[in-house]
């Protein structure tokens, strides 16, 4: 049985959002696929929608609808059109700044006629048990820009000076590789592991240019690149590592994409080691120093002037007819709808078994989103530059008692089984080992 997917598409150039009816999902634009990703653009099976397909990005932006697993395509009684639950805070910000509305007629995508409501109702069938959601993966969400990238850029030298101890499990993995292996370190940070095995050749990349400069200063072969979109050819490496990186990616789709990239860039038979911070921290007192996210996350991203929305997981977007003037109204409706929706919705989180539990600020067990502080001592923070800017923007605070500028780093810490679940959908890799070590969940994959 075909399960139609109904998704909200918002153009990434501030043009007007439009809904794409399910029939589109069966089209593909394979000319836009990279040849080594062509398999991902396979046509849909007759019994289910394929797991991935390609769209043109010059007129699209996709809302992240699985922020906390609360996705539904459910008719909303107040309006006659189906409502899509979205919860991408970063894209919400883009949406809220739309002022000039232009109708995008250039896209090849089918657009909804002004009486599209009836079309939508006919074509959407809801599956109350399960649904699929479409996610933009490669554009960096705001929360990562501000609370990962800029933070590491600002703290790079200090951070690097604290990163010297080699984690035994990683060292064991690297030292077990055959002599002459090419090892790719995605998210290499200060390059701690580059060159650890002298018989292997390491290439590292990180999104932080200051950290990469530190690596280059040590003679390492490195580049500035995005772990979600590795610039390597397919199948070239013998092994890949991702040490304490994925927990900085703010959506499940991006985390999954990063894993896919690690598998893609190694050869058949190549190994991938991934480690991420665990919810189940051995030192429980650490959690008290972290800021659990829902409230802060939302306030930060919605902004003080916007209506207070309680949960990033239950944003709703009404289907929007394609008229020029309704953007402002839509925005208002969006907000009103969110408020209404939220009065009877709890914060939710998705557990790895797929069940949904409620999550409030006090329920640490299910809490996975955090800001983790980094204290940059005053004598390490430059007089002008990143830290001064961060303080001015409110992205960092001064702690005079500790004599440090305090930055917050965004983390999605992993719960037991989550890594395994993320890799379970990858058809060309198998798990060869998984373990918990020093408050990290770790997994080793082999590409098949």
């Amino acid at each position: 049985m075909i399960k139609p997917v109904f998704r909200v598409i918002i153009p990434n150039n501030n043009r007007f959002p439009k809904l794409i009816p399910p029939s589109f999902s069966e089209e593909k634009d394979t000319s836009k696929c990279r040849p080594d990703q062509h398999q991902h653009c396979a046509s849909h099976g007759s019994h289910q929608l394929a797991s991935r397909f390609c769209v043109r990005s010059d007129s699209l932006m996709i809302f992240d609808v699985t922020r906390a697993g609360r996705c539904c395509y459910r008719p909303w009684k107040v309006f006659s059109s189906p409502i899509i639950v979205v919860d991408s805070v970063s894209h919400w910000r883009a949406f809220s700044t739309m002022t000039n509305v232009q109708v995008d007629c250039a896209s090849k995508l089918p657009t909804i006629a002004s009486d599209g409501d009836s079309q939508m109702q006919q074509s959407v069938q809801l599956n109350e048990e399960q649904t699929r959601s479409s996610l933009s993966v490669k554009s960096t969400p705001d929360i990562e820009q501000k609370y990962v990238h800029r933070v590491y850029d600002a703290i790079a030298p200090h951070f690097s000076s604290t990163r010297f101890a080699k984690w035994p499990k990683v060292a064991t993995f690297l030292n077990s590789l055959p002599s002459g292996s090419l090892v790719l370190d995605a998210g290499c940070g200060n390059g701690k592991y580059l060159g650890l095995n002298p018989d292997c050749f390491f290439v590292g990349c990180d999104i932080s240019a200051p950290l990469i400069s530190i690596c280059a200063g040590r003679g390492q072969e490195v580049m500035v690149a995005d772990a979600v979109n590795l610039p390597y050819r397919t199948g070239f490496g013998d092994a890949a590592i991702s040490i304490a990186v994925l927990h900085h990616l703010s959506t499940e789709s991006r985390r999954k994409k990063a894993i896919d990239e690690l598998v893609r860039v190694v050869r058949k038979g190549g190994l991938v080691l991934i480690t991420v911070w665990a919810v189940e921290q051995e030192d429980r007192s650490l959690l008290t120093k972290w800021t659990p996210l829902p409230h802060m996350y939302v306030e930060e991203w919605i902004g003080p002037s916007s209506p207070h929305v309680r949960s990033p997981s239950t944003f709703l977007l009404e289907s929007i007819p394609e008229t020029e003037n309704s953007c402002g109204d839509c925005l208002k409706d969006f907000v009103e709808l969110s408020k209404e929706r939220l009065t009877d919705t709890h914060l939710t989180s998705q557990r790895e078994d797929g069940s949904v539990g409620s999550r409030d600020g006090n329920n640490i067990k299910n809490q996975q989103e955090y800001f983790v502080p980094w204290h940059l001592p005053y004598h390490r923070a430059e007089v002008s530059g990143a830290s001064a800017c961060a303080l001015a923007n409110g992205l960092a605070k001064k702690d005079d008692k500790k004599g440090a500028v305090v930055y917050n780093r965004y983390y999605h810490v992993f719960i037991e089984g989550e890594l395994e679940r993320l890799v379970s959908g990858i058809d060309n890799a198998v798990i060869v080992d998984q373990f918990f070590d020093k408050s990290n969940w770790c997994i080793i994959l082999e590409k098949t």
Partner: protein
Amino acid sequence: MRLLTDYMLSSNIKGVTNGFPLRLEVEKSVEKEVDFNADFLKNMFPKIEWKALVDAFRSMGYTELPNEAESPMLDSKEFLKKFHHALLQLHLEEGALICPETGRRFPVSKGIPNMLLHEDEVFDEVYQIESQF
């Protein structure tokens, strides 16, 4: 940036079907010594399309290697040394890597390539993940 790295990179700008090899634009190159590892060279050799690599060598001004190479040549220490030198010891310090399809320049500065894409170059794959509620 070493030539090996150049060889393994690909332009992943949206719409590009064949993003490698990236052409070299050389403003400044240097030589840096690297420990010789025959295992590594023999491991890399089969992964490499020799012609493409030769083009890269030539653009860096290195002409010691033949236009064609077969695996028996790996038995020759002299060949291996030259291969080692070209692959690992020639560095592009300043310049750019050029996407073969779009001509887009990925700058290389102080030996570090910047492979980050701009927002409008990002290929927005749509990922569908099952979720339950």
